[in-house]
């Protein structure tokens, strides 16, 4: 079950709706650990002083803002907390607009907005009113020392909130040289008609399920294969007393004997896994000819 990552309330006008936020997206990145190839040991991060290399204990670390090279203003967590309007803990709705007014470039991270038990009714009321009016709410709220702009919108009977970037964080397209050069380019009607025809021929309804992160699938598959094929990239160093060392032939003998007996018990064992056709093709019953040939050789 997902865990709420923030609790507070949605506030607009005189209405205050206690809610919790849940992540609406769980990223499925494959995360790796760092391993020392020489020993197979996990690599541990250590904070060290840039001056003398000695380890710095966690409680000795403060945030420093670089004013100019080697000049910092240090800020303690307490000082930041004092600025953090923790007490408000509200998502303040400032206006209602049409969803189509927001360019997707503004959207950042999506959260589900869930009502606490006592607030189910006003939550539903807000959601249905927005749904029927076809509006989304623009709100501000503070989470973990950052003030966010957010859009709250109805989706399948629930409210979904997307944090948004601020207008001054969006890089103007004109800053990209190739894009500012596009102004003077003209296209003919005939070219446009052909391009439109191509767009039309590929037009369809968006089905997000059709798309998968195939790179991630491949990474996971690679991991599975390696894990199944006993080629673990590295094995952690074995404790000194792990497994007693035995003689090679002694180790193999029992397994080889067992395999041979298993074949005698099930001489057509291959049929069990559906490979009989291939095996039958490769194994005509003409052994006597070979024996004869061997003697003549």
């Amino acid at each position, binding site marked *: 079950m997902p865990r709420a990552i923030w609790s507070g309330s949605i506030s607009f006008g005189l209405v205050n709706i206690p809610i919790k936020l849940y992540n609406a997206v769980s990223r499925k990145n494959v995360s790796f650990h760092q391993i020392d190839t020489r020993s197979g040991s996990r690599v541990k991060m250590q904070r060290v002083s840039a001056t003398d290399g000695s380890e710095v204990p966690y409680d000795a670390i403060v945030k420093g803002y670089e004013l100019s090279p080697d000049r910092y203003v240090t800020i303690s967590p307490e000082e930041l907390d004092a600025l953090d309007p923790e007490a408000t803990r509200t998502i303040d709705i400032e206006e209602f607009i049409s969803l189509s007014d927001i360019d997707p470039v503004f959207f950042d991270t999506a959260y589900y907005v869930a009502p606490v038990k006592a607030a189910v009714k006003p939550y539903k009321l807000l959601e249905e009113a927005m749904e029927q009016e076809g509006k989304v709410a623009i709100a501000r709220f503070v989470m973990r020392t950052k003030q966010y702009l957010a859009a709250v919108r109805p989706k399948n009977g629930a409210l979904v909130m997307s944090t948004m970037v601020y207008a001054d964080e969006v890089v103007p397209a004109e800053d990209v040289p190739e894009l500012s050069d596009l102004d003077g380019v003209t296209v003919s009607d005939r070219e446009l008609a052909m391009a439109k025809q191509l767009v039309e021929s590929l037009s369809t309804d968006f089905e997000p399920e059709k798309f998968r992160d195939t790179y991630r699938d491949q990474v996971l598959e690679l991991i599975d294969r390696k894990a199944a094929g*006993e080629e673990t990239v590295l094995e952690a160093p074995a404790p000194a007393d792990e497994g007693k060392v035995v003689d090679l032939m002694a*180790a*193999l003998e029992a397994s080889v004997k067992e395999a041979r007996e298993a074949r005698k018990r099930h001489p057509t064992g291959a049929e069990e896994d559906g490979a009989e056709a291939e095996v039958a093709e490769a*194994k005509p019953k003409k052994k006597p000819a070979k024996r004869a*040939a061997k003697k003549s050789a």
Partner: protein
Amino acid sequence: VTVVDIDGRSLKLSNLDKVLYPTGFTKAEVIDYYAKVAPTILPHLSDRAITRRRFPNGVEGQTFYEKNCPKHRPDWVDVFRVTGEDGTIDFCKIDSLPALLWLANLAALELHTSMARAVDPDTPTMVVFDLDPGLPADLVDCCEVALWLRHVLGSLGLECAAKTSGSKGLQVYLPLNTGPMTYERTAGFSRTLAQVMEQQHPDRCVSVQRKELRVGKVLIDWSQNSRHKTTVCAYSLRARPRPTVSTPVTWDEVEACLDARDAEVITFEAPEVLDRIAEHGDLWLPTLTLEQHLPELG
């Protein structure tokens, strides 16, 4: 996991009871085969670049071609560093029983080797004619072509040796062991011979790769004579429905196979190959020792 001591090296063997072939042949049997064939196969492996073809989930599972020696190799497995136009590759140096069994434990069923030694990667020590049948042609048809090829080589005063590929075909090797030599010359020689054979027996063999030309004929593949290619090593297991081995055979056996028109005559599985070694010794030894000069053609 079983830890074994092999010649003073400690090696972890895992999943010994895992069935790697549909006939029920297990990983323990693969390792057992390579352990017993080691004295015979090692001279053919120990100083050459090896491409490993691994089947961690058995011959019906996914396969991996590997050239670079993995970083997680035991510290007693050495590498050959071979630098070419396509970069640098560190090949595993498989020159001992423990190194060979380390590969066997990784389910490296097939070991493919270069025509040259790793220390001198541009100097092939032998020429290979890889006879590859196009259905419905089979190993028997390869025997016929191999005997013609032997005859042609013989008329040039050259001796050659034959081994099954362990899969569908047959391979004829022409030992040289006399430097200096280049792939340009070995490829040119084998190509010319393949073309001569194709002219003499246009209904039986072809000298070009194209699949559609091969139907019912035997491809005399000369292109394996390349710095970039490896060919299955003698005594290597193959990933076939049965644990068949690329097996050196006598010319009498090649004739017997053709006479009987039965591929089984020279199709050998791992345990039979060990019996053959006990009986014949290493039939493949001449490829390492016989010194012959490649004639200039045309």
